[in-house]
């Protein structure tokens, strides 16, 4: 299936207008603020209650508060899952607008493609040290049935296209999150300040991810903080993806636009590509992104080695090189992954049904008062938490052979049906 951007399908006269009266050059496009790659170091956390029980965002804030020295106050954020139980099927768009004009233009896009069931400002409280916040609004959207049908896309691709459209061509508007029953709360400030600003402690979620950023760019761009999201994937990332140059060009072949200048962007899109579109089992997607070294592959039994060779050969341009620790959150759980020689810290713990990861053990201890187990995950091996009773959006039960993986990638569509299904 080829992936044509929505932009090309839409008649030009229905694009939001970018007239000269707006004083082009006065309102910064978020794209331009990110014209140079933003590096950052950081601290992160993720917590998931596998029973589905909801936890207050305060836990996430506290875990980040003890990791304050890992950031420099220029970025902090959280994402929570299960926070909008009243709107379980709507896409909850958390929006940032530089000014009212950007808001109007983005809302025009929403009106064209979605049914807007609720639009309201994000609840916030004033915090000393947080100034220059953009306008923060949230919208609960459902794709317009007619538009969806005539676009011949899945609802998710429809939403992805809209997000790409707004981020790349609506001046001064940015989609912070666009998933169902989840949302991202982020901005320029330390995570505890951002958490306080968005009143994160008043939300309850079964899964939280959090991040403390140490960027080296011009401060002021709220969109640059983590987590970075697409649909209900959210990613927090510590480290630097030195293969960004080729990762972004590889993704562009599939229609993703890497416009935000953060290397985390490619991680999010790669997970979306491998898990949702290519339907790779989670373990294999992790092996494609954090591949075993050739010396290790040469020691594997033949069948496994053949599989790994296919993954590396096919997904080489997508392999994430450089130090990283990543936590991927989604409706259904979370996954934490390290680069293949573990150059960034990551510690994990389990207490009852709660699974938690963080850059430092102190964050785990701050939240879990009596963990059953605390451990250091191995490089390239994911820590996985699954929420009971929720759809696992990741084809973890499907084991494809090497040739089937290759076929899946080159586009023979029926392989999923003919592949063996193992439990």
């Amino acid at each position, binding site marked *: 299936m080829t992936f044509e951007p929505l932009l090309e399908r839409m008649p030009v006269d229905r694009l939001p207008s970018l007239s000269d009266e707006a004083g082009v050059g006065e309102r910064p496009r978020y794209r331009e603020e990110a014209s140079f790659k933003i590096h950052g170091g950081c601290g992160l956390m993720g917590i998931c209650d596998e029973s589905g029980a909801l936890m207050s965002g*305060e836990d996430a*804030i*506290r875990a*980040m*508060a*003890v*990791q*304050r*020295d890992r950031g420099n106050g220029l970025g902090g954020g959280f994402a929570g899952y299960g926070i909008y139980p009243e709107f379980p099927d709507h896409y909850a768009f958390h929006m940032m607008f530089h000014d009212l004009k950007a808001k109007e233009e983005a809302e025009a896009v929403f009106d064209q493609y979605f049914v807007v069931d609720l639009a309201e400002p994000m609840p916030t*409280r004033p*915090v*000393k040290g947080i100034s220059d916040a953009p306008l923060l609004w949230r919208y609960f959207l459902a794709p317009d049935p007619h538009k969806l049908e005539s676009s011949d896309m899945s609802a998710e691709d429809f939403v992805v296209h809209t997000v790409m459209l707004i981020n790349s061509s609506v001046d001064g508007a940015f989609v912070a999150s666009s998933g169902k029953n989840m949302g991202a709360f982020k901005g320029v400030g*330390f995570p*505890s*300040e951002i*958490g*306080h600003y968005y009143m994160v*402690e008043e939300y309850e979620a079964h899964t939280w991810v959090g991040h403390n950023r140490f960027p080296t760019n011009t401060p002021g761009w709220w969109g640059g903080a983590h987590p970075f999201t697409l649909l209900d994937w959210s990613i927090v990332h510590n480290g630097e993806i030195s293969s960004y140059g080729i990762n972004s060009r590889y993704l562009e072949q599939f229609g993703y636009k890497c416009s935000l200048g953060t290397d985390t962007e490619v991680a999010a899109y790669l997970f979306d590509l491998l898990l949702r579109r290519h339907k790779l089992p989670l373990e294999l997607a992790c092996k494609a992104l954090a591949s075993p070294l050739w*010396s*290790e592959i040469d*020691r594997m039994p033949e069948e496994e080695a053949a599989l790994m060779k296919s993954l590396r050969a096919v997904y080489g341009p997508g392999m994430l090189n450089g130090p990283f620790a990543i936590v991927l959150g989604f409706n259904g759980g979370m996954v934490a992954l390290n680069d293949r*020689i*573990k150059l960034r*810290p990551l*510690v994990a713990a389990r207490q009852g049904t709660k699974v938690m990861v963080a850059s*430092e*053990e*102190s*964050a785990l*201890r*701050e939240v879990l008062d009596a963990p059953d*187990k*605390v*451990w*250091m995950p*191995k*490089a390239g091996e994911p820590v996985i938490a699954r929420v009971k009773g929720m759809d696992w959006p990741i084809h973890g039960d499907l084991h494809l052979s090497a040739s089937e993986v290759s076929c899946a990638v080159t586009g023979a569509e029926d392989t999923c049906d003919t592949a063996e299904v193992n439990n």
Partner: protein
Amino acid sequence: MTQSTQNNGPIEGYIKTPPSVTVEGDTARIDAQSVYYRNMNDSVRKLVADGVKNITLDHVNGQRYIGNGVSGKDVRIEVNGTAGNDMAMFMNGPTVEVFGNAQDGVGNTMNAGKVIVHGDAGDVLGYGMRGGKVFIKKDVGYRVGIHMKAYENLIPVMVCGGKARDFFGEYMAGGMLVLLGMNSQFEGPLVGGYVGTGMHGGVIYLRGEVEPWQCGREVGIFTADEEDMKTLGPVLKEYCDALDMDYDEVVSVPFTKLVPISHRPYGKMYTYL
């Protein structure tokens, strides 16, 4: 636990005020609950300067740089809780004992003294360590013991009771690095890959076996013999005493010995006009 969020401000992980200290003779107790590392360490340094020999830190959770640069052979710092990054970095003589886990960077560029951890320790332990002893009871992570170096009577020693991951003893230039593989919650082998890559000095002892592919090209794999036990034995004894383990059980399994087979591992790599 840190303060809960209230309408008077964001949650703070640590507070920058001096901790409460109780002193009795040459012993002091510091309540480090939510105290910022700089304030906590300032208190420790002041107590050491005032001649206090025994310092206990309670409710530690992640504070960094404990024992950093502190001198004094007879100073003892006890840590209750989770020790933060770079503990005992540049330390020069004291003993630091942690009842809990330690995070990354323990004994980084440590000069002299003793560190005992009754738990796990993280990555990058003993990087550039040049003297003193580090005893870890349980597991350790990646890049442990990189570039340890010895000089004359300053010989660094590190003993880890659990298992270790990749790059154990990378670039080792001197000293003794020991891995026991007991007290472990890791699945899989005793140690990871790339053991001793770039090793050009020192000795590594592993309780058990290692495959040749796991070791760097510069490493020769031998079995420890009686001569080795003359130096290894006393170290293990001291370790067992500190961590309440059974010496006989520890030495009941033969040790593998790794030493560099060349002091010039990169001797043939370069040329010039």
